[in-house]
């Protein structure tokens, strides 16, 4: 469903991604780990279509379409969802109104009528319950005055309502206490299915205890340098990234 080939990307003339390859099949969960500055968030931004990032080489195919030719909103409506590391606040716009606008835009794109009020509210209630999101948050301005945990849960809540094909969790676990982490993970697990693939970008192993990735990739210096199963994450947790650096050194000098 997603095929990234030899992607090179830069911001302000600085090369961040340097030939990254990644294949994701429907329903797979891929974890991307790596030290600070390795390009993890850049990958998320490039996939979501952030303007500041320039793709200088390579291709990305998403559900048979050339992703890089689509605007950010088209990517979203095609089913790509980014759970932001730092969700923004929009004063005066309630979470309910915001998500309704987004959902109806997507439905329009799919040639569907806007959801009627009753069905929409039912959907909202159901998903809010899943994320243990207090109903009062839905009528408050989007993310305004939300705690860190509430913001992250709100991201997963939006994912639940919009039902994407591919979700990118950009350090969703950062700043979460253990309870919030559990709730977020439960939400993601419930919504993950054979048609819904997930990319988990994270520093730490702890979210992966809950999410059970099919693959773990190590991103360093703009490239995936090592891939493996979930045991790789445990190894990283234990040994740090240095052992991979050493392995790389060896392979270079050998």
């Amino acid at each position: 469903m997603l095929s990234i080939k030899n992607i090179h990307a830069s911001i302000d003339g600085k090369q961040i991604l340097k030939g990254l390859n990644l294949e994701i099949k429907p329903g797979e969960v891929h974890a991307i780990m790596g030290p600070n500055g390795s390009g993890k968030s850049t990958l998320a931004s490039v996939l979501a279509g952030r303007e500041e990032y320039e793709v200088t080489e390579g291709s990305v195919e998403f559900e048979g379409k050339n992703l890089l030719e689509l605007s950010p909103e088209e990517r979203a409506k095609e089913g790509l969802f980014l759970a932001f590391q730092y969700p923004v606040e929009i004063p005066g716009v309630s979470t309910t109104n915001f998500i309704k606008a987004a959902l109806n835009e997507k439905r329009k794109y799919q040639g569907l009528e806007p959801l009627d009020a009753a069905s929409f509210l039912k959907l909202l209630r159901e998903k809010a319950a899943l994320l243990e999101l207090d109903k009062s948050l839905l009528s408050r301005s989007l993310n305004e005055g939300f705690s860190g945990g509430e913001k992250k849960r709100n991201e997963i809540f939006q994912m639940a309502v919009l039902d994407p094909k591919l979700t990118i969790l950009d350090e969703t676990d950062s700043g979460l206490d253990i309870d919030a982490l559990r709730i977020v993970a439960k939400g993601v697990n419930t919504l993950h299915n054979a048609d819904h693939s997930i990319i988990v970008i994270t520093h730490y192993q702890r979210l992966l205890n809950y999410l059970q990735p099919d693959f773990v990739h190590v991103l360093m210096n703009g490239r995936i340098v090592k891939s493996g199963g979930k045991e790789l994450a445990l190894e990283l947790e234990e040994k740090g990234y240095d052992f991979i650096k050493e392995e790389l050194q060896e392979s270079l000098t050998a």
Partner: protein
Amino acid sequence: MADEMQLLEERVNREYEYGFSTDIETDTAPKGLNEDIIRLISRKKHEPEWLLEWRLKAFRHWEKMTMPKWANLQYPEIDFQDIIYYAAPKTKKAKPGKLEEVDPELLKTLDKLGISLNEQKRLTGVAVDVVMDSVSVATTFQEQLAEKGIIFCAMSEAIQKHPDLLRRYLGTVVPMTDNFFAALNSAVFTDGSFCYIPKGVRCPMELSTYFRINKENSGQFERTLIIAEDGAYVSYLEGCTAPRRDENQLHAAIVEIVAMEHAEVKYSTVQNWYPGDDAGKGGIYNFVTKRGICKGNNSKISWTQVETGSAITWKYPSVILKGDNSIGEFYSVALTTKFQQADTGTKMHHIGKNTRSRIVSKGISAGKSQNSYRGLVKVAKTAENARNFSQCDSLLLGDKCGAHTFPYIESKNNTAVVEHEATTSKIGEDQLFYCEQRGLDAEKAVALIVTGFAKEVMNNLPMEFAVEAQKLLAVSLEGSVG
């Protein structure tokens, strides 16, 4: 909960929607201003002698005045001799008594503007007075209102039918010498609405005046007077549009409100005069004096305005808080795009004890526009325990526009508490990208963010008006993104 996005979908075209003009035969005075023209206007309207004298006095005073220059506005000198001061759509009778007597062309125009004079309008519970160029062309629901003793009619009709009331209150809130444009209006005002709510009566429907400038080179100088007797309540709406013209047209109106003991008047405006084209050519010069007096104790006057039109807006709806415990409110959204300039705000003049005022101003600037908030909170020696809270927020779209805030405070009573908060923000790339990532394009994202920004003010508008105002904000913003 209003559905923002649905409103946005309903938007029509990028151009000023009301920019058509109607080919109606008009009865027009020659260009220019002198005592003869004033006598002509007065004669046309069959006015009593005192009113003519009043006009002439205002004119003689105006002649000695100069245009105010203190506002943060730039515009060429206005040639007051190059303006038509009286233009009236011709009808068989001076004022049509029945709908059938109204010129069919005029009815078509009103239909296009979405104003139905048909009594079916009853369903929406709004009584309408329509003022085209210099005269009121139709007023609805007069009979039903009259049953409750409410007078709602054109100013010219009030002059004939209620001269005593008019004489008692005209110019008592905005004196003819108040300012340059007030003096001009007092000399040449042609029509407008008059509204009287008797003691203890709660007006059962929204009263609405719709102003339209149609004739070329003509100015519009309407005057509205609202009187709410003890314990009365009325909610009043005002809407305005004009055709697209390359020349600037002048609009200099006056609104006076008198609220007696325990009376409440809520005055809402959606101002959508033609703002000029993309190059800054044309548009209405809008110089308006609006003021209310809380004359009685425990009275309340609330101004809510949504300003999206006009090339130039100079307007400060104010409240004189004379009665003890009286309340003044000002809620404003001013949106400027293209080359529009707005200098708008309010004055809250605390005189009575325990008087309270609240100011919420939301300025949105886009394109190459300049948007200023100017407000004065004045606390007199007598105003024990006066309270004011002001909140002025500015939102900038792009980097070629300006937002300015000029708050003035004069307090002569040390028991007064005056608070002022101000913020300026720019729609962030992060906010836009976040919305886009959820499937909203940039234009929809901006409209959503702006609607959220203006919400506190919009919530004060009557329901039906709020929907229209939101639509208007979205339409006015089109093309200002990117």
